[in-house]
């Protein structure tokens, strides 16, 4: 990494003023960018990512630093756009696999989304038990995803214990069958209780990255900002399982932590009342044609899929993912934040660069 920072001199300014007997600070600094505090300083452009500890892999964040405050933010995903449909289209089963492979951080959610959209296009309704069991798989992924986020938060904030503990729990959760995952309940409760009590964690997260309700918020980020924004509240299957949405008002990183901790326990309760898993791997659409739409609450928020089916082949698909919207928030959200706070804010949004639209 090489950056043009304070070492890089003002050859030009020097040439103009080199023959002056005294240094004139006003002249020399007149072309430098002004910080918010009025001090003219050279700004340093530093890349964070695409492989930075504590940030999601594949996210390239370029921060222009004024001292240690963020003056400008550029953000892009270097692994996004995987969900684009090949021009020839895809048959139903490959489409499900294709969408599932797009985001390695939430494969089940996108496979399920594909299944649901295909079924909507073909006009099929799978039976109640299948739908319930698919929800259980989705909720298991939500727990695993939130644990993965906790591990990343641990890495980002230098909280070594959390990083190791959450990583171990995530691996356990990914492999778990029903009895095993229900055993996780006490561990997750203990983790929640412990994180709420941990000194410095509250002060670290409280007041960082406050977001106000807007149309670009999705999932836990929106719910932490007091928005009733959850694809699950309109879903009959969830309603039958007595699902209740949780929300908080603050909208900062600490609220997002609370929302995610609460959701893990909620998901466990949902899995328990379903009592079985059904992987959404394939669905039979035959040679049906039609247009379908599905929306689903991924671990990061609501994703939507519109697709057109022509005699059993997907010929058009349009995907809307939460991270695509959240990335737009960053430049305003990080402006003038201290570097550490800014990175904690990025981490707390739980971005998945894989699911960003091309």
């Amino acid at each position: 990494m090489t950056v043009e920072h304070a070492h890089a001199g003002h050859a030009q300014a020097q040439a103009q003023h080199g023959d002056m007997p005294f240094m004139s600070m006003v002249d020399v600094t007149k072309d430098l960018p002004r910080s918010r505090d009025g001090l003219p300083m050279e700004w340093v452009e530093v890349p964070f990512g695409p492989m930075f500890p504590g940030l999601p892999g594949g996210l390239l964040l370029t921060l222009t630093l004024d001292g240690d405050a963020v003056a400008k933010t550029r953000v892009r995903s270097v692994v996004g756009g995987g969900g684009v449909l090949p021009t020839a289209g895809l048959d139903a089963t490959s489409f499900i696999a294709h969408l599932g492979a797009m985001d390695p951080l939430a494969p089940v959610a996108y496979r399920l989304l594909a299944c649901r959209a295909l079924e909507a296009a073909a006009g099929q309704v799978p039976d109640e038990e299948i739908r319930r069991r698919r929800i259980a798989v989705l909720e298991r992924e939500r727990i695993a995803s939130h644990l993965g986020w906790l591990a990343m938060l641990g890495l980002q904030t230098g909280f070594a214990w959390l990083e190791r503990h959450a990583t171990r729990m995530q691996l356990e959760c990914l492999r778990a069958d029903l009895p095993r995952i229900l055993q996780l309940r006490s561990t997750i409760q203990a983790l929640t209780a412990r994180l709420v009590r941990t000194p410095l964690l509250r002060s670290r997260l409280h007041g960082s990255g406050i977001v106000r309700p807007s149309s670009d918020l999705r999932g836990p980020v929106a719910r932490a900002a007091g928005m009733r924004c959850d694809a699950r509240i309109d879903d009959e299957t969830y309603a039958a399982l007595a699902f209740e949405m949780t929300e908080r008002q603050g909208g900062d990183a600490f609220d997002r932590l609370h929302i995610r901790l609460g959701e893990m326990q909620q998901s466990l309760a949902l899995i328990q009342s379903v009592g079985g898993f059904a992987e959404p791997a394939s669905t039979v659409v035959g040679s049906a044609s039609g247009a379908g739409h599905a929306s689903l609450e991924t671990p990061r928020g609501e994703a939507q899929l519109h697709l057109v089916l022509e005699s059993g082949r997907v010929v058009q698909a349009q995907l809307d993912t939460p991270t695509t919207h959240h990335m737009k928030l960053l430049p305003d959200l990080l402006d003038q934040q201290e570097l550490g706070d800014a990175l904690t804010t990025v981490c707390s949004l739980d971005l998945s660069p894989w699911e960003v639209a091309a």
Partner: protein
Amino acid sequence: MISLQTVFIAFFGIATIGFGILVFRTSSMVRSALALLFSQTALGAMFLAMQAEFLGVLQIMMMATEMSIMAIFMVMFMMDPGGLGAMEMSHQKRLSILAGVVGALATAGIALFTPWGVVVNVAPPAAEQIRALGTELLGRSMLIFETAGVTILTAMIAATAVALPALQRKRNA
């Protein structure tokens, strides 16, 4: 016969002067500040070698933080702190040379014409020095030091108070 003490004093003395020259021989502000720091540190070490322990340790301690802070202010307020523009670090050369020569002559004069023998004989050992210094600070000189301390504190608070409204105006603008 040259004692080990003389060797150390000479070594640190030369280091002091050497680093002092370096301050002006570089065009990097940060290097310049740290050269000044090490010049002062060498001076502190020279005091240690001269058995003025408290003075030496105090010198070594105070300079480190002060010079580091000076370095950050230079980076903040000066152009070209890295010195890539090959900036000249000396100004008003004739006046400074004159001041330097006069200063050197005066110091050499004091060194040569003071009857050091008397001073050396009455100088107490290190532990005694510290005790005497403490008694002095809490006795006769207390008023002077307390006044100076309170004045500096007042100045710091006043400076902050003066800066705050200006900062507020800039923020609002």
